[in-house]
């Protein structure tokens, strides 16, 4: 009997939003220490006076990062780092060493969306939202001040009293006796007025009449100013950083209000925003003719770039998994903490091909592909020359060579020379085609010829599938562990391994679940589902091409500026925002010799659903026009632009070697 305390799925907690400070510290792995990124260091979060925008798809770790930097977690960290009880002075000096205090603020989507409609003009809602936003920041700020007082970090009694008196005045109330809880009550009471209005306005026409209306920056900057003047502990070299998460949920008019704060930050007060890619709905501010601009008003750090760019991504994932595995007694006791061993260090495609063919009654069905390059009457004779049942993938390469026009005898000879390690030109070419170019493509084609599916398993494959989104990797692992615990507990808990079959189930499940979620994406769900599904099916066709003319094609190019339909453009941006497609960091040629263009890939997490490659190989990219995009988003297309007819054209016969990326 295994108790809950002894075993739990190490990957069951995947959402940083629901983690407390302790869990965040336990699971924390800094993407910036693992992956050198010259343009940014963790210190910048606390010290850089310029606002910073952290962008990334769902699950890239933005929230984890912002929460890690927040006051609550840093305070916990300061306490943990001190062997003895951390005093207020030590906490203060820890924060001063950091260079700033980060205030984490998240207003959820349902609340943000309630500031509109019900017959109230939008400009009135904007004023109410500004008031509400200022109060939210004030609440967050006062909570931290209260905590610093309680922890003894703020000891200056007369300074504190001056602060409280002035804060009360700022809030429109005269404070008879300075009391930090009373200030908190004033703020809470003001927020409740907003809530009461939001409730009442749904049933009847009502007006919002608070005791005092707070315009933009009145409290957010005002309280900080007062604290700086009055409390000596918070005045010295300590930046005040407001971190607003999930900024993409703010409406256009709400973003205008917050953008204004970004535009006019004051010395010592700045902002960090967490948002999805393409999460800005506007760059405007509330002032006419003023807008925010990258480089001038803010810096942008893209999380997916950081995670994808470097090969150390795999090491980062291993570290993330290790912390989770070590937090479960069962694995910690047995020293099972390396996810690359649990999932396997490499996918053994040759073994998979042999297993795929085992016990098949139509074992030679893949030889039917010979009909695309040889007379049907000669197929049996050709088979005898190129058959190699010990390894079906070699047979597949032999078939490919034959249908590309090479004499069957020469094909058979080349294979034998390769197997015997000879150095002939043919053997070298054979080796290059098999090992460097086509092995994975041949596996997809073999599976397709037998109407079977290729499996997705091993640590590198899970890493590829996760597409730089650590949340995807955690979810893949969660599902794999779930299956393993249910179906082969002994292997998991005793041997510390999960069979490829179960890993594959997890990968397929997640791909399908993610696909099912697409139609539910706000505003553009239907468009995006068509888009993802069409891309998947088009790339699937490339993987079924018997001539493997464009191996492992899973990317495309489009000049999105040429799309005049605003809805399509927005839908395309939403595809990036929701990481359905991912933009490559640098422009590339879509075909050898063509001009460089922005290249996009279908998120590889969907690969198992379409039986396409789990890696991005580069090389050929499908080129789409504005009208193609319209079709892809509104109809079932599913056909590649290239003619993948069953006859080989001369120019298609020579494929270039392409590195994996």
């Amino acid at each position: 009997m295994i108790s809950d305390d002894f075993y739990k799925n190490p990957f069951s907690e995947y959402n940083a939003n629901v983690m407390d400070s302790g869990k965040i510290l336990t699971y924390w792995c800094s993407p910036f220490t693992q992956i050198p990124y010259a343009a940014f260091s963790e210190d910048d979060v606390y010290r850089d006076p310029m606002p910073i925008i952290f962008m990334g798809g769902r699950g890239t770790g933005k929230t984890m990062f912002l929460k890690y930097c927040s006051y609550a977690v840093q305070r916990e960290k300061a306490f943990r780092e001190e062997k003895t009880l951390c005093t207020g002075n030590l906490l203060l000096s820890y924060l001063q060493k950091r260079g700033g205090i980060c205030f984490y603020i998240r207003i959820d989507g349902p609340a943000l969306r309630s500031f509109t409609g019900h017959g109230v003009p939008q400009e009135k809602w904007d004023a109410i939202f500004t008031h509400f936003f200022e109060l939210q920041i004030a609440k967050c700020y006062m909570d931290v001040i209260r905590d610093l007082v309680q922890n003894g970090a703020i000891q200056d009694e007369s300074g504190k009293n001056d602060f409280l008196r002035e804060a009360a005045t700022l809030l429109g109330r005269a404070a008879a006796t300075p009391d930090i809880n009373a200030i908190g009550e004033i703020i809470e009471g003001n927020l409740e007025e907003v809530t009461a209005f939001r409730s009442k306005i749904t049933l009847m026409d009502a007006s919002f009449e608070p005791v005092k209306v707070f315009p933009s920056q009145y409290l957010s900057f005002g309280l900080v100013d007062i604290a700086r003047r009055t409390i000596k502990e918070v005045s010295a070299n300590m930046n005040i950083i407001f971190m607003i998460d999930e900024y993409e949920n703010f409406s256009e008019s709400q973003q205008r209000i917050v953008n204004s704060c970004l535009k006019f930050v004051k010395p010592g007060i700045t902002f960090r925003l967490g948002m999805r890619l393409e999460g800005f709905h506007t760059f405007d501010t509330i002032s006419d003719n003023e807008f925010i601009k990258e480089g001038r008003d803010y810096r942008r750090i893209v999380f997916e770039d950081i995670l994808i760019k470097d090969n150390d991504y795999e090491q980062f994932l291993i570290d993330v998994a290790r912390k989770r595995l070590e937090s479960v007694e069962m694995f910690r006791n047995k020293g099972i903490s390396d996810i690359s061993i649990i999932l396997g260090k490499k996918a053994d495609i040759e073994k998979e091909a042999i297993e795929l063919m085992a016990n098949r009654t139509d074992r030679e069905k893949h030889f039917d592909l010979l009909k695309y390059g040889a007379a049907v009457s000669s197929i049996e004779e050709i088979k005898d020359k190129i058959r190699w049942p010990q390894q079906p993938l070699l047979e597949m390469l032999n078939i490919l060579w034959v249908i590309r026009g090479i004499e069957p005898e020469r094909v058979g000879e080349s294979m034998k020379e390769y197997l015997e390690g000879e150095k002939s030109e043919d053997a070298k070419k054979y080796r290059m085609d098999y090992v460097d170019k086509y092995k994975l493509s041949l596996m997809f084609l073999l599976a397709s010829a037998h109407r079977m599916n290729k499996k997705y398993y091993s640590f590198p494959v899970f890493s590829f599938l996760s597409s730089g989104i650590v949340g995807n990797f955690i979810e893949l692992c969660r599902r794999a562990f779930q299956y393993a615990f249910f179906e082969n507990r002994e292997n998991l808990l005793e041997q510390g391994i999960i069979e490829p079959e179960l890993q594959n189930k997890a990968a397929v499940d997640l791909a399908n679940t993610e696909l099912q979620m697409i139609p539910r994406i706000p505003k553009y769900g239907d468009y995006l589902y068509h888009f993802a599904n069409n891309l998947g099916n088009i790339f699937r066709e490339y993987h079924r091409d018997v001539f493997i003319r464009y191996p492992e094609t899973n990317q495309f190019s489009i000049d999105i500026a040429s799309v005049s339909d605003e809805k399509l453009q927005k839908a395309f941006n939403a595809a990036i925002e929701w990481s359905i497609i991912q933009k490559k960091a640098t422009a590339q040629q879509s075909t050898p010799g063509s001009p460089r263009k922005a290249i996009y890939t279908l998120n590889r997490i969907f690969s198992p659903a379409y039986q396409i490659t789990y890696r991005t190989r580069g090389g050929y990219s499908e080129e789409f026009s504005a009208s193609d995009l319209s079709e892809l988003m509104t109809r079932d297309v599913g056909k590649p632009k290239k003619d993948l007819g069953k006859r080989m054209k001369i120019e298609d016969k020579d494929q270039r070697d392409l590195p994996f990326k």
Partner: protein
Amino acid sequence: MTCLSSEGTRRVNVQPKKLYSQTLIQDRYSALPREWGCFLVAGGSDYRAYEVLRKFCEHGSVFKNVLFFDFCERNKDVDETIYRAYNSYMTLNLKVTKIPCSITDASSCIKSLEKYSKEINCSPTAIDISCFTKPFFFLILKYLKEQIRLKCITVFYTEPRSYLFSKGLLRSYHSSYGALTVHEMPGFPGIDTRCTQKILVVLLGFDGELSSFITEEVAPDETIIVNGFPGYSPKFKDISLINNERLLGTSSELLYARADNPFETFNVLGKIRRSYENTFMNIAPLGTKPMALGACMYAICDPSVRVVYPLPERYANVTTEQCWHSWVYMVPLV
């Protein structure tokens, strides 16, 4: 917090007093009042939409006012069969007052009810929630309590014989299609001040993606699941669990309440509230209508609770097949 029992009594240390009742109607329409002052019903294409009205008419009941909520999305640009089903109430020859409304805007419709306050005030008042979307009947009940000052209302509900599963039993039920946006239920924003923690109670339904979306948006510190059990059919509770597997893995508790009993849901929510005092409690009523009714009663009773729901791009026109039991609940609005 008051605890309601399904026998219709309040568990306090005084003489038990009947506050409400839940009755399976079957063919006992004659045991119910023959005359209704006001009856609120939603237009719909499901067969059960007018089942209660139909049965009442067969038993010769009299309706002084029938307020018919006429949903533009259900009645326009739909195919002939659906159109006919939607308008089949006309064969009952009732004098109805049509209230034009749109699924996406419950608030405007409810505000327009002021014009009909005379009709609504004509007791006894009843509502059939079978085909109302949840935001509508939540807001109607709140309106009746706060604006009309009703103390109690009779609520009818007809269970479907089955739900429509287009491609297999386990994973193909969808009550809605297209893009989803998670909203606060109009009129139920809750009070999040003075709370440091946020919990989400999901009344489980068949659509797994709805609960995932809501959980992601609300981002609660803890999630508690309430599954409808026993359900209308034994398999239903399992369909809910299978489709919400992802949520189950991250929730802290799995509780049960009878799918057809709003008072049990009310009590379960009260129990959760007592275990999680001083938290900002969110309820996502994704399960059956009676469970949602329980959530509505609870949220009216405890305004600190927020109700959240997913607003889809479009609802399925027909989601159920035929009728099963009809229930009548006496719901206190205090």
